[in-house]
């Protein structure tokens, strides 16, 4: 049973779309971490997003792989960068 790790991002008001697009491209590069099966990171197209206008969907083989990803140094660096430009972050995990 795979795990879908979903992250929704609400950017600070002063952060431009261009900066967020660049950030999404960097998030996509985390796919090179062995534990990650697949990443989609892009801008939201739904108008009921409550300000969470960017997000990422990540696929993992199991909970152990997700944990490995969370502990990975490249994720830690990226996490710090995301926290710097975002006012709020929502995270949910679904088994699929």
């Amino acid at each position, binding site marked *: *049973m*795979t795990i879908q790790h979903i992250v929704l991002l609400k950017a600070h008001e002063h952060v431009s779309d261009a900066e967020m697009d660049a950030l999404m491209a960097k998030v996509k590069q985390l796919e090179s971490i*062995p*534990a990650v*099966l*697949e990443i989609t990171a892009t801008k939201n197209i739904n108008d009921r997003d409550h300000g969470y206008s960017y997000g990422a969907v990540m696929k993992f*083989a*199991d909970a*152990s*792989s997700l944990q*490995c990803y969370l*502990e*990975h*140094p490249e994720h830690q660096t990226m996490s710090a960068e995301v926290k710097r430009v975002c006012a709020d972050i929502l995270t949910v995990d679904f088994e699929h």
Partner: protein
Amino acid sequence: MCRYFDSGLRALNKLSADDPAIWLDSVAEADPERLLIRTTDKRLYSYGKVADISGRFATYLSQCGVCAGDRVAAQVDKSPEGYILYLACLRMGAIFLPLNTAYSKAEMEYFISDAQPRLLVCRPESIEQTKAIAEKFNVHKTLSLGIDGTGTFIENALSCQADGFTRFSGDASDAAALLYTSGTTGRSKGAMISRRALVYCANTLAECWQFTADDILLHVLPMFHGHGLFIAGNTVLAAGAQMIFTNRFDVNEVIRYLPEATVFMGVPTMYTRLLKHPDFSKNVCRKLRLTISGSAPITSETLEAFRKRSGNSIVERYGLTETLIVTSNPCNGMGEPGSVGIPLANIDLRIADIETGVELTEPNTVGKIEVRSPCLFNGYWRNAEKTAQDMCSDGYFSTGDLGTIDEKGFLYLVGRDKDMIITGGYNVYPKEVETEIDALKNVQESTVIGLPHPDFGEAVTALVISETPGELNEASMLSALVDRLAKYKCPKKVLFVDEFPRNAMGKIQKNLLKQQYEKLYQEIGQTGN
């Protein structure tokens, strides 16, 4: 004497009539989504999926006319599908014959003529050459299986039903696999491994090494060898655990995947290469709970360096294709440095006098290592003479290794009485290489020895007396041997000499040559690849 007592006996009683594929079936039924294999190109194979594919493979094997007891030979790259082919053979009763992808055409012809498989599965790129060999030796069918799960075998098998075959219901003592080991007389011998031996070994190791369903093994070993196929693969199945499959040992890939692994099994060469990598650290090994080394002796320097860099102690174990695993150090850190451990449950070990064969009961006395075990092979394929030669009348097998047992029952290896060379984890018998060299033009006589090599452990090294001095050179000899021997058997260096040191009986004194050239690979900057 220390010994792993209880678990093995229970395992033998519990599963004596079954085979490792029964573990696949039971997990697939209870928890089909549980992950068994994950590849580095991010393909997932759950227990349920592997059970389904292996059922289709088994059905197709039956449709190809393969019956219980027939040999199915596979010279394929490592892939989940290649491993599933082995499981399919277990389920329907065929004898699986894995062959090293490095074997030359001449070597393949020998194995196929000797084993007489019903079906031969090869790499797609080798199909024409393999078909020619198959036709020569009346193999019923030749199909291909690629590293990416493609090929004619897969194309045909996946359209079959998963339950269209008859599950093997024969005796647990029947052979499940045929593994060729290098031969002292110039020819490899096929060791017949029983279903019971596979079950017993994996069950005992799973308990001894405290495997659980939460374990993730980083599987970097080849699958044509008992180490990767049985010791690693079957033990994971016995525990219902998971494997991350790499196609081969690539040190950068291992560094990338180790943070996810709880168990790593390797040969000494792999550990020395990991230690040379600048990124190898405690952080990379943060989830590792068990690191196993086998197939060749590991130096105390490597053990100590690994412990310091990774925070983990390497657990050494000892075994042969014919015996599977015989001893292991405990994985609780209570092992003895320099030892390969104590006997596993229900395995009897003794040291016998080199000349007389009489058991030596005094601790720390060097002699031949002999083993009696539920994991012992059934004998050499169609070679009763060689089987009788290596088996004692009381059921002990003479391993050909020399060792001592201390007061606490720990086994120490001190050498081999058959001159076998272990290079990068592979066994090479000098006689086989010498026979090929002696057949070359202008060679008067050759001798082959193993010399210490910082990367390979030992390096195959040939010393040659030329019939006409100056007529032979190293490059031409090595290029002539490439077609006759697998790459790992080819000498790393060829040295030309005028004579060999001999004893009073005229026998070449290899020990003196080993002493004379001991530092060859240090002096020449580790030449050889």
